């Protein structure tokens, strides 16, 4: 059991990170902290998918003189590049919403905002 977990430490790590992030999103009261939790979740999923493509001793898959197998799988990296772009736009939108909420209400604590409604 322990050996199996150790062998898959990259997957275990990303699942643990995912849960930490989800915990922050659910329990934190401050909107910025909530959002940091969401960013942790994003990172964990990205790390998980990048880890899928890793090959022991693999090289960057760039063809040309001197290129020799094994190669690392490039597809997960290409996917996550897109994923990061999406994550950046989500972060930008969320932060601008938080700024606007602060301007309107003078607070970004979720419980105080709920009282104002």
């Amino acid at each position, binding site marked *: 059991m322990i050996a199996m977990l150790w062998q898959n430490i990259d997957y275990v790590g990303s699942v643990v990170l995912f849960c930490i992030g989800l915990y922050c999103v659910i329990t934190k009261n401050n909107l910025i902290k909530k959002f940091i939790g969401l960013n942790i979740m994003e990172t964990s999923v990205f790390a998980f998918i990048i880890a899928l493509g890793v090959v022991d001793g693999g090289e960057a898959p760039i063809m040309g003189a001197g290129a020799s197998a094994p190669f690392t799988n490039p597809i997960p990296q290409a996917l996550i590049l897109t994923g990061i772009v999406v994550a950046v736009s989500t972060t930008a939108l*969320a932060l601008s919403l938080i700024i606007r909420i602060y301007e309107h209400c003078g607070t970004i604590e979720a419980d105080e905002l709920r009282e104002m409604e």
Partner: protein
Amino acid sequence: MTASALLVGLIIVPLAGAVLTPVVGGRDGARACGWATLVMVVTSGIAAALVVHVAQVGPFSAYLGGWEPPYGIELRFDEFSASVAIICLLGLLAVVFSLRYAAHELPPVRIGTYYTLLLLNLTGMLGFVVTGDVFNLFVFMEILSLSGYALVAISGERTAEMAAFKYLVMGAVSSLLVLFAIGLLYALTGSLNMADISARLSGAAEAPAMLALALLTTGLMVKAALFPLHVWLPDAHAIAPSPVSALLSGLVVKTGLLGLIRVYQIYYGAKVLDLSALNTVLVWLGAISIVMGAFFAIFQEDIKMMLAYSTISNIGYIVMGLGLASQYGMIGATVHIFNHALIKATLFLGAGAIIYRTGYRNLTDLRGVGRSMPFTTAAISVGAISIVGMPPTAGFLCKWYIALGAVQAGHPVFGVALVFGALFIFVYYIRMVNSFYFQQPVHPEILEVKEAPLSMLVPILILAALCLVMGLLGRIPLSFIEPAVTRLLGTVGG
């Protein structure tokens, strides 16, 4: 032009239109609206051609960049993708409706942005329903979600921004669940193409395949706002500008369900898991959604809040139909995706027109508005009758089919839940119609307001007419979708 070129055009045209909106429209809201209308007319033409093509020759594909699957990205157009027709129709009508509404409700500097976001949102939905690649599905889902969050917040009011933030947090978490599942599927099969995944999944290990299924279903259920994952919906849909509410309630939540149909297609074909446990969960959640959505709606005073809760009920109907996994249930659910979009758009746009003219949104304040805005309230009444499911309207047909599906699947008790839910829904819609027509006005000046302007009234009346026509011509969508459902269920041998 070939069908595959048209299929690519279906996404490129609104996307390019969205990017060019600020260039063409500048600071002039009316010009931006004209441009968006033009873009949507072209897109609708393409969508109509594609739907006719699929009816004639069956499903077809386009390979982006000439790379064949499983290496390249495949756009796949099947009978379920025919929902592009309703997306284009509602998109077009919402844009036309926005001409006067946006000028009245939004800060002038944001009107150009509003049309850009609207077109981006529609692009996301169109891409979502035609893609045959799971990662592409995720990208389009994010396009439509991100533009959706921004559209909810666009009026710049405090409550709108808070509703948008709530929507964003739940939406982003659900997107990550879906991305996680896509990673798992890639790890299991080494492919991102849906058909290819389905073919390769049959030899895969059971536990990770089940985890991927659970993550996908949960993620998409948040997008679809199924009870108990609905908490973001009422605020976001009620506070958004009315044309946006119509799109969010009519279409955006449906993409979660269309995504679920795609998941079914992958897993039914793969035969790696027995899906009956999932189906049981879906049927129960659907039934609970129907009753809870209707129950909450009864206590709402705000007309748009009531409509938002009614969406939760109707999502429940569709999910129940899908979960029954019987021929009739599945057909009813798929057609209800289409018909509910029509009905809910009628109601939200009608409510928007009333709020635009009177400035009130509570039922008590709106008493007597039926006398001053006869056409709008008549359209809303048609929508209300239709959503309750009275014959001969569009809503009756699907609910009848879902009830038949419950009997066919051997669970008539869910048919009872369905009728019970419909009674609840009847209660609060009758309350709405009652206060429009039969009660003494609280505010006498409400009798003086004018009927909605033409740019609003025409979309509303077109939609209301379609609610009736789709009830009478119900055979067409039913027989259109039947081969696809038979194919889907045929793969499980049930």
